[in-house]
Every structure is written in C-alpha cells, then in structure tokens.
C-alpha cells in the first residue's frame, strides 16, 4: 500500500533520483518531472497528494508553476512544497506570494525530506479532517434549525407542565409519605390528568414568556430564519459530498490499474505510452482499457513480423489495418475508403490478430488535428469483438 502519491518537479537529475529513491523506500508512490511544463501535465493526470517543486527550472519556473497550479481547477487544492537551494527568503516569499504550504532547503538529506513530507501530509489530513467535521456541523445546524422551528415551543410547554406537576405532586407526596408504593402509580396518573387540564392554560401562558424569551435567544431566531431554505442547503451539501466521493473513487480505481501496469514495467510513462506483451494482456483487455480511459492515439501491435495499427479517438476505434492489408490495398489514404470498407478492414485485421497470441503492443497518445477524422464512424471495442467471435 502506498502512503500517498508525490510528484517531484526538479530539473536536476540527481535531486530527482535521490528524492525518488528515498521517498519510494518510505512507501510513497513517486512521480517525477524534469520541468514545470511536464510537471503540470503529470500533475493533472496523476492528481498527487503532494507536489514538491524546485524554483529554478527551465521553461516554467517554480513560481510560475505555483501560479498555474493555483489557477487550475484540478490542481488548486493540492499542497505544494518548494524545494530550493536559493535561501530562506525565497521560501518565505513563496509562502506569501504563491500559497506554497512549506519550503525545504536544498541540498538535503533524504531522511529530512521524508520527515518533511510525512509531517506535511499528516498536517494536511488533520486539516481535511477538521473540514469534514465542520461540514457535519453545518448539516447539523441546518437540521437543528429545522427541528427547532416547531419542537422548541412544544418542549417549553412540556417543561412548564412538568415543573408545575412536580410542585403539586410534591405537595401530595408530603401528605402521603407513608404509602410510597401507591404514590408512584398515582404520580404517573396524576400528571397525565394535569397535562390535559393544564395544556389549554399553558398555551395561553406560553405566548407571554415567548416574547420575554426572545432577547435571551437571538441565536434561535437567526436559525429559524436560516431554516426557511434548509432543504436546498442539504441537497447542495449532499451533492458536493457525492461528487467528491466519486472523484476520489475514480482516481483510486484509475491509479490501481495504472500502478499495477507500472509495477511490471508495462507502462513506461503512465500518461503517454502503454506497452507490453500479448502474453500478459489479452487484446480485449487492452482495447477495453483504452476505451474506458477514452484515450486518443495509435495502438501498434507487432505479431510475427506483421504490424497492426489501430487508431483510437476518445477510446473508440476509427480504423485498424495490418501491413499485409496495406500492401493489398496499395497504401490508399484513409479518406479514399468508404466507411464500409474501413469497417471490413478493421474486422479483418482484428480477426487475424486474434489468432496469434505472442506479440508486443505499444499505445501512444496522440492528438489529431485533422477534423475529418472526427467525422469518421467510430466503433467501440465490444462492437468489433463480438462479430469476430461469431
């Protein structure tokens, strides 16, 4: 189990390596980037729990990195620690200007770094815990204010009743102290009777004390006012909670798939390239992985000296073709085929590919600019796999 995901952004390879190794030993999942640009990209895909960032870096400096991160919806809540070799004043300036949580001096000892990371992360979790408690309080307040609007009066009535009952019953008690056993049953009966009688009187009497009570309970009056639209607030809170929860769950699931692949060295860079052998992965699994992650790019599969090429747009297949087919069709452009022909080619490529078990694949994320591609018919993997079976 990893203790958390940490992204390290530093241009110095030695610092990167040192921090990566020591943090990994300490049980963290470590991602690295060599400059700010790469760091931002990685941060968006990985969603780390903590970012360690250097100040002096090529392309995007640490200060710009922090600025971008704070402007970014996904990254704005991720805590950042500055690693700098440029003095305390830089760290202080960063805390003030860029909302950096803390800073750390370079050169550092690995133990110190781990300590810093651990203390920061625990501080964050405490902080998060507090906010959760606050939220619960908020909900409770809303709920309370709702309840208070009516029961408060009722409670007061009952209090007054019991008080009066007690005084009267205590008189009786004094009179009949010797017969206590019978008294108990009487005590219960009598208040009930009294309640019935007194209720009419109490409701009248309550009207006066209520006015008198107002100055002493200004909080409750404000709460009552708030209670006018409590259902909306609750709805919002619940919605927010659910969204947060689902986001967390989704990232956890994603991370587990990625980390599993990463562990076996199948993903060189989790955000860009996916590669491995067909011995370990079924073709369908790869297709489904691409489909579920809505990736856009080219999947190349090499089997027995034949290369297959599949183009994905947002996880859906646009076309698939092998080198053999390419030779047959004479290297026509994609636009020269009709959608029927493309589907036929894709199915042929898939069926011949499915016969072979040994091979390697590589998936590269690419962004296509040709908008013609987006107008092409796309097929989901399951759509294509099923006809192949029949």
């Amino acid at each position, binding site marked *: 189990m990893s203790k958390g995901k940490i992204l390290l952004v530093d241009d110095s390879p030695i610092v990167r390596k040192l921090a990566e190794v020591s943090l990994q030993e300490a049980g963290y999942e470590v991602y690295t980037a060599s400059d700010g640009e790469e760091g931002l990209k990685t941060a968006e895909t990985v969603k780390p729990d903590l970012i360690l960032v250097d100040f*002096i870096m*090529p392309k995007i400096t640490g200060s*710009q990195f922090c600025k971008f991160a704070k402007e970014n919806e996904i990254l704005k809540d991720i805590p950042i620690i500055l690693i700098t070799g*440029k003095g305390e*004043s830089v760290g202080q*300036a*960063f805390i003030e*200007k860029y909302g950096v949580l803390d800073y750390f001096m370079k050169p550092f000892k690995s133990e110190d770094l781990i300590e810093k990371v651990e203390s920061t992360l625990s501080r964050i979790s405490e902080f998060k815990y507090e906010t959760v408690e606050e939220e619960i309080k908020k909900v409770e307040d809303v709920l309370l204010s709702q309840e208070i609007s009516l029961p408060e009066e009722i409670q007061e009535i009952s209090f007054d009743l019991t008080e009066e009952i007690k005084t009267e019953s205590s008189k009786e008690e004094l009179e009949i102290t010797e017969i206590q056993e019978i008294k108990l049953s009487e005590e219960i009966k009598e208040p009930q009777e009294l309640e019935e009688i007194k209720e009419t009187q109490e409701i009248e009497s309550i009207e006066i004390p209520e006015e008198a009570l107002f100055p002493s309970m200004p909080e409750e009056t404000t709460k009552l006012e708030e209670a006018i639209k409590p259902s909306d607030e609750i709805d919002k809170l619940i919605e927010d909670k659910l969204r947060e929860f689902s986001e967390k769950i989704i990232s956890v699931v994603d991370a587990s798939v990625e980390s599993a692949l990463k562990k076996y060295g199948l993903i060189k860079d989790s955000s860009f390239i996916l590669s491995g052998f067909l011995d370990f992965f079924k073709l369908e699994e790869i297709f489904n992985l691409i489909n579920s992650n809505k990736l856009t790019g080219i999947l190349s599969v090499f089997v027995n000296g034949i290369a297959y090429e599949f183009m994905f747009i947002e996880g859906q297949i646009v076309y698939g073709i092998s080198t053999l087919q390419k030779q047959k069709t004479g290297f026509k452009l994609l636009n020269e085929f009709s959608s029927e022909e493309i589907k036929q080619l894709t199915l042929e490529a898939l069926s011949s590919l499915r016969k072979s078990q040994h091979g390697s694949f590589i998936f590269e994320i690419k962004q296509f600019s040709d908008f013609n591609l987006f107008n092409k018919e796309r097929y989901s993997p399951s759509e294509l796999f099923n006809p192949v079976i029949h």
Partner: protein
Amino acid sequence: MSEELEKSYCVFGIGEREFLIPKENVIQVLEIIRIFPIPGSPDYIVGALPVKGKIIPAIDLAKVYNIERLNYSESKLVVIIDVKGEKIGILSDTTPFFVNFEPDIVVEDIIEPDKLFEKLKVSQKPSEKANDK
C-alpha cells in the same frame, strides 16, 4: 504584463549547485571545441578560449567557490559574460537556460558580474595581464 516587471537570469550549474547571472551580462553560450591551457595561471583559470577571433579566459567557478563535483563530467559548455567590456567564459556543468521571476524574490547564488570580476582580478592580476599580451 507582469513579464516586464520580472527579471531575467541565465542559470548554469556547477556541480550540484545552480548559479544565476543577470541575462544582460550574458553574451552567448558556447560549446567548447578547443581550450588552451595557460601555464602558471591560477587553478580556477582552466585555459584560454578562442571566441570570435579573440582569446578569453575560461573560469571554473567550482574552484572559486570551493564546490565539490560529485560526478565529474567534463563540462562542454561555457557561458560567455561581459563585464565592463571585458569577456569572461564560465564553465557550466549543465545546459544553461533562462528564467524570469519577480525582482522581490531574493535569491541566493546570484553572481554579480562586477563583484566576480573584482574578486578574480585581485588574485589573478599578474598572470592574466601577462596572458593578455
């Protein structure tokens, strides 16, 4: 908008340390093709470097600031800076790059060319003068 307020520096590495030098002092970054050792010169002067038909001294700041190199890789790049019309080459272990940031961030390890020049001048005066001729 804020770009104008920011100051530009050239960053180069010596060992594991990074130094910054104001961009306006940097003339160019060169790859060292040939360097001529100067006999009898202080140890921080690596040698003489031909740049655009002129010979300029190449300085290793590691010797000046007593920095240890963990992995000694022969530096191939040199930052040519201009100090009061004189040129000095500074060896860099990393590929130099430029950064911009707000001037109110006080950064250590900024090399002020004038001060560096004075510092070097004091100790190297006799030998450098001799080599210039």
